[in-house]
């Protein structure tokens, strides 16, 4: 009696190939999962912005039209204008990396960069500075 049958090898090879394909798929897909910007007003999520659309545009949120955001073609986003007095939100500059955030405290708005889908455990948890 042979230890391996031909069909055994096919089954084992198939399992290994499928495993490899899944591993490669997850590696590619999740490693480069696009990032989103999330905008919170009074701690409620009010807007999600896909930063991978290669677009340059300005927009506001319905909750406060005096605060203007701008998305850039390079996938970054910033507070463009605000009626707050300290302008710390605008000075926070462009954000594009997961874990970055900026806030306009007087207007109770937070802008932060998140993964579009699942977080990798190698993603930045928070970025300061």
């Amino acid at each position, binding site marked *: 009696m042979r*230890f*391996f*049958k031909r069909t*055994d090898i096919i089954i*084992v090879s198939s*399992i290994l190939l499928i495993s490899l394909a899944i591993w490669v798929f997850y590696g590619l897909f999740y490693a480069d999962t696009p990032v989103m910007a999330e905008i*919170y007003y*009074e*701690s409620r999520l009010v807007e999600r912005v896909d930063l991978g659309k290669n677009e340059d545009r300005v927009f506001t949120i319905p909750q406060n039209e005096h605060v203007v955001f701008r998305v850039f073609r390079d996938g970054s986003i910033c507070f463009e204008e605000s009626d707050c*007095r*300290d*302008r*710390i939100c605008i*000075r*926070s*500059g*462009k*954000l594009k*990396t997961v*874990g*970055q*955030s900026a*806030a306009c*405290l007087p207007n*109770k708005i*937070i802008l*932060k960069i998140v993964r579009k889908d699942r*977080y990798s*455990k*190698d*993603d*930045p*948890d*928070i*970025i*300061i*500075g």
Partner: protein
Amino acid sequence: MKKIISLLLALSFSLTLSGCRQGKKRYEAQFLQLFDTVTTVVAYMDSKDGFTEFSSMIRDTLNTYHQLYDIYHDYDGVQNIKTINDNAGKRPVKVDNRIIELLKFSKRTYAETGGRCNIALGAVLKIWHDYREAGIDNPESAVLPEMDELKEAARHTDIDKIIIDEENSTVFLSDPKMSLDVGAVAKGYAVEQTARLAQEKGYDSALISVGGNVRAIGSKDGKGKPWNIGVQNPDDNSELLMTEISGRSVVTSGIYQRYYTVNGREYHHIIDPQTLMPSEYYKAVTIICPDSGMADYLSTAVFNMPYEEGLAYINSLSGVEAVWVMRDGEVRYSDNFKQYVKSD
């Protein structure tokens, strides 16, 4: 063949178990009402309810510290640091032990850092605060404080005139013109105490950040995988470095957001107690050490030290590392800082 099938079954079973252990989901919450900045709480947990309970506990604990350490506002039934300031030269104020512990910590570290960060500098900081606020409101007429005015205020910044009576739980400022400003240490100290409380309650994996005062509780997965804390370049928000920490704190002091402009020049908010002017050594200083209160305090104290002095001081401390961004953009590290820099 049976052996192979058994092996595959065992392998898939072990992977499933591993998946269960790692199946916790990432949750993140942010609060706006604490310490005039953004608070972020991150944790990997089994359920949203569990995370909500945890983040609410963190928020409520920090809010208590926020009220106690506030120098601008009164709260019903709370004798806080503003109460102490309001009664300078008048009477001792009975306060919560958490205020006394903060003041003792700040006095101790003041002595250790050669007075580079002084919580009794309130009289000087208030002048800068008022000029900065006026300059932000009316940029065309923004001016600097007169040095004579600053020097007069500096006569009322003696930290030894903070009289702490532990037996009666009172604090008295014996100079009527002095005031406390704990802005350089309160956030970090509050984060540290909150993290310790969370650990006492059994939480062993979470991240708390109050305005960039970051404290990691344990590791990311409870098994040693460190948290990834990025520090951005003060010039363009690009990544300066990515650190890996477990059970430690990362705090940055920088000059690039809170400032006002006079005659085309920016004047930031970190005031050197020796010159009474905005400190001019660096763009940013980042500290990593186990205690978030110490990290917060040191980030300001080292910011006010010349580089050689700061480097020697940091290297003399056990478990404390620092990175400096010099005015010309050069980045310098303490002797063992790079052990925390993520490599990939």
